[in-house]
C-alpha cells in the first residue's frame, strides 16, 4: 500500500533529531510537526520571521500578528524569537537550519527540483522555496512518486522550470525512501506492501536497487 499523507509525515519525522532547528514547507511537510517523538525538542522555523512555532491558537489566544509561512494563525513556544525576513533568510541561506522538509512536482537524478511553476497554468510564485533549497544542506523532499496516471515524477531530467539545481539528496515518496547520488536514485526503503517492481516501474530516472530493500518502519 502506498503511504498516506500522514504516514509520509510520520516517516519524515523519524529523521528528526533532538535539538534540531527545522523548516517545514506547506502541505505534507507541515504534518511532520504532529509526529515529533515524545521527549524530543525541535524548534520549528517559519520563514516569515518566527523561530519556535507552536500549535494553533485557541479563539482566546488568536493573534492576527502571529502567523506562519502558510499565513495560518499560530502560537510561539517558550524560547521562541521573532525577526525580520532578512534575518530569517540569513538563517536559511547561511545553512543554520538543521533540516528542511518541502514538497515537489518533480526531482531528477542530479538532485534538481521543480516545485514552483507549471507553465500555462497558475503561476503563484516561488515564495521562499528557492532560498530553502539553495541554503540547506539537509533537505528531505516529500512527494508523490507518480501522478494519477502513473507517470513518474522521479525523472532523468526535470521537465518543469527548476526551483533549484543539484541540491536534493533525499526523497520520501508514497512508495519509497530514496537517496540521490552519483547521477541516480538509490532505493533505501519501500513502503509496507509496495513491491520493488512497482517502484522500478514508476521511477523514470536511473534507479539503483540493492539486493535487499527493507520495508519502512514506523
Amino acid at each position, binding site marked *: 500500500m502506498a503511504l498516506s499523507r500522514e504516514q509520509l509525515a510520520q516517516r519524515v519525522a523519524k529523521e528528526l533529531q533532538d535539538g534540531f532547528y527545522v523548516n517545514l514547507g506547506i502541505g505534507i511537510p507541515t504534518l511532520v510537526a504532529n509526529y515529533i517523538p515524545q521527549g524530543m525538542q525541535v524548534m520549528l522555523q*517559519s*520563514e*516569515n*520571521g*518566527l523561530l519556535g512555532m507552536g*500549535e*494553533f*491558537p*485557541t*479563539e*482566546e489566544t*488568536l*493573534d*492576527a*500578528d*502571529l*502567523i*506562519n509561512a*502558510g*499565513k*495560518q*494563525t*499560530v502560537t*510561539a513556544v517558550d524560547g521562541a524569537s*521573532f*525577526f*525580520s*525576513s*532578512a534575518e*530569517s*533568510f540569513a538563517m*536559511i*541561506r547561511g545553512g543554520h537550519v538543521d533540516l528542511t522538509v518541502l514538497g515537489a512536482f518533480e526531482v531528477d537524478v542530479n538532485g*534538481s527540483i521543480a516545485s514552483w*511553476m507549471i507553465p500555462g497554468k*497558475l*503561476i*503563484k*510564485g*516561488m*515564495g*521562499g*522555496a*528557492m*532560498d530553502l533549497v*539553495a*541554503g540547506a544542506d539537509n533537505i528531505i523532499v516529500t512527494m508523490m512518486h507518480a501522478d494519477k496516471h502513473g507517470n513518474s515524477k522521479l525523472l532523468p531530467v526535470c521537465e518543469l*522550470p*527548476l*526551483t*533549484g*539545481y*543539484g541540491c536534493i539528496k533525499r526523497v520520501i515518496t508514497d512508495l519509497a525512501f530514496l537517496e540521490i547520488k552519483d547521477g541516480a536514485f538509490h532505493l533505501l526503503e519501500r513502503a509496507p506492501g509496495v513491491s520493488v517492481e512497482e517502484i522500478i516501474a514508476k521511477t523514470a530516472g536511473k534507479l539503483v536497487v540493492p539486493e535487499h530493500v527493507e520495508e519502512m518502519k514506523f
Partner: protein
Amino acid sequence: MAGFNKVVQSYDQALAGLTDNMTLMVGGFGLCGIPEGLINHMVTLGVTGLTAISNNAGVDDFGLGLLLKQRQISTMIASYVGENATFEQQMLSGELNVILTPQGTLAEKIRAGGAGIPAFFTATGYGTPIAEGKETREIKGRHYVLEESLTADFALIRAWKADTMGNLVFRKTAANFNPMMATAGKITVVEVEEIVQPGELDPNHIHTPGIYVDRVIQATFEKRIEQRTVKSAK
C-alpha cells in the same frame, strides 16, 4: 514639523509627494503587518503607474489587491502572489508586469539597498529561470547569481509602536519585510498602533532607529486574518 518630531496628523501629509509612476515598497507578509491606512489612502489619491515591491499582492478586496483592482500598479515585484485572482488575471492578460523574486533574495535586495550595497551574489536561483540573463560566478566551488539591490521613492510600512522621533518597535511576525523596507525608502512612512514620547521606548528594545524614518502616523487596524486556524478550547 520641528526638529526630530516626525508625527503627521493626516494621510495627505503622510503621503505628500507620492505621485504617478513612483516605486514603492509596501511592508507585510500576506495581510500580516501591512500598512492598511496608507494603502487605502493611495486608492483615494488615485496615483497610477506604480511599481510596487511587496512580498505578496494582498487579496482581492484588501491590501495591495485594492490598488490592483483600480489598475494603479503597473509593475509588481513579489515572491508569492497565489491569493489574488485579480492579480492572476492582470498578469495573464499582460496588463501587469510581474517580476517574481525568491523571498530571501527579495528581502536581501531590500536590506542591501538600504545599506548602500548595490548588488550581491547568492546561490538562490542558480540554474533556474530566475538566473536567466544575470551574471553568475563560481566562488570556492559553488555557483552564485548576481542580484541587484532595491530602493524606492517611498517605503510604506507598519510598526507596533513608535516614539515621535521615529524609533520603531515591531510586533511578533508583523515585522517581516517592514524593518528592511524602512531603510530602503527615500521617504519612509510608518503607520503605527501607538505613538509615545522619546524616552518611553527602551533603547535596548528598538528594532529600527529613527534615522531611517521620515513620517509617522497613528492608526487603528482591521488586521484581517487570511487563514484563521484555531484548535478547539478544552
